[in-house]
Every structure is written in C-alpha cells, then in structure tokens.
C-alpha cells in the first residue's frame, strides 16, 4: 500500500465484515512517531489473535484480507510495535506504533479520503475519529451528523462533499499554525 490511510481502510473494512456497529479510529502523532488505534464492537477474534498476522491463514466464516499482514510487515520493517486484542463477542482492538524516521514507512496519506469512503459504504456504522498532533486534536463523530441530518442519509453525495471539506479543514488546522 502506498499510504497508511489505505492500510487503515482495509482494517476498517475488516471491522465492517465483523459486523461492528461502532468503530473508533485514533491517530496520535508527534515529531518522532505515529500511533494508530482501531477499536470496534464487532464479533471479535476466535482463538489466538496473532494468527491473523499470518498471510496464509484464512477463516471460512470471516472474510478478512491481507490488511493485518501488510501492517505487520511495515511494523517489522520499521521496528515498531503492534498489539491485537479481541475475544469472541467483545470486539477487536488493534494498535500499532511506528517511528517516523523509518525509511520504509509509507506516508499517512489521505486519511480524509479513507474516512469518506468508509462512510459512503457503511453509513449505518457509527464512526468516531480522533486525531492528535502534539498538543492539538480534533474529534469527529458521525453520530452527531446523523442526528442533525434526521431522515437525510449521511452518504448522500452532497452531504459527503460537505463532510469532506469539513474534515479537510479540521486537518488543515491540526497541521497548520503552531
């Protein structure tokens, strides 16, 4: 994958496939590292979570792709760390830490595009996104927008366009200034 944001989209699709109703994405950045955390309340993981890192492992019930093995590869190349938690019925929690100086680390990339894509395809999932950069942070909660939109779907093309510029603006404020 060319961007970490694409790895994140792949992992988000796993959560959707695991029938998650609530998903939270946390991105924490400082000058030295990037920390990404994904929590969902989907079906969790049956058995040892680490087997999901094996690209040759597949379960017939669960359609999960190579999302986790790809993340694991970056973590190994960059000597970062990774943690997967999840029992059947209690959701899944994936987190990984990557040092920013690593030459093999893909850029975070277009995280707004990843979020908009996910909301387009899964409007029914409540999606929270928290992005922290140094001392600054921004929080997005799709539930708040849905409440405001009442009967109008959150994935209507015009709503998506507005959401996109809203998220882009938030991100610009995060990265810009002091």
């Amino acid at each position, binding site marked *: 994958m060319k961007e970490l944001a694409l790895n994140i989209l792949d992992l988000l*699709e796993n959560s959707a496939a695991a029938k998650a109703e609530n998903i939270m994405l946390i991105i924490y950045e400082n000058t030295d590292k990037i920390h990404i955390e994904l929590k969902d309340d989907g079906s969790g993981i049956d058995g040892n979570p680490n087997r999901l890192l094996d690209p040759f492992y597949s379960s017939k019930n669960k359609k999960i792709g190579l999302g986790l093995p790809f993340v694991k590869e970056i973590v190994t190349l960059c000597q970062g760390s990774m943690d997967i938690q999840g029992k059947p019925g209690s959701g899944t929690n994936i987190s990984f830490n990557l040092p920013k100086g690593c030459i093999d680390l893909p850029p975070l990339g277009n995280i707004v595009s990843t979020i908009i894509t996910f909301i387009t395809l899964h409007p029914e999932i409540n999606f929270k996104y928290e992005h922290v950069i140094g001392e600054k942070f921004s929080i997005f909660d799709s539930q708040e927008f849905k409440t405001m939109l009442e009967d109008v779907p959150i994935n209507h093309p015009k709503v998506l366009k507005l959401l996109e510029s809203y998220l882009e603006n938030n991100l610009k404020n995060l990265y810009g200034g002091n």
Partner: protein
Amino acid sequence: MKSLEDLKKLRDQIREDIKIRAKGERVKITIGMGTTGIASGAREVLKAIVNELEIRNYSDIEILQTGSIGLDAKEPLLTVEKPGLPKVTYGLVTIEMAKRIVVEHVINSQIIGDWVIRSS
C-alpha cells in the same frame, strides 16, 4: 462547512430535492473493497463516482462494497445494476472511466461495452 446551520440548510435542500426528483428506482453500484481492490485504487474510483453524482445532482443510488470475487487481476472492479438493464461488471476501472460510467451508464442507461468484463 462553517457551522451547523450550513448542515441544516443542506439537509432541508436535499429533502426538497428528493421530493421533486426521486423516481423510486435505484441504481445499485458495487465496488470491490478487499485488500487488492484498495491497493489498486478502489478508494479513488469510489470518490470519483461520488463526486460525479454530486456534480450531476443524481442520488437515486445505492453504493455497496464487496470483498474479493476472484478477479483480483481486474481490480478495481465496479458492478452496476440499473433496473431494466443487464447487470454489468467493469474491470481495471480508472478515475476517468468511473466518471464516464456514471454519466453514460448510471444516468443515461448506455452500457460501455468495451470496458465490460462480465455481464449477466
């Protein structure tokens, strides 16, 4: 969006729009969002579709995702089902192709035969 007022305004505008335009028949678009689909550009293709729909003010549509369907070499894959037309899958879809598929097939009911890899 500057304020929540903007969102409310847009909501009311969309509501009015749906009342006037909605014909009740929805086009179903399915995009491959497995690992291979994502790695080969499905996210950008989907964004181009949503963008084009927004520009053309067309929203009688349902956008769904699917995992790998065994045609990884042809990703990004896009399946379009429009009432009255055969269900068609396009392969190796680019951003430019996605825009044309929305205008010609989704809106104007003209299947783009050259790009079809599967039809049923």
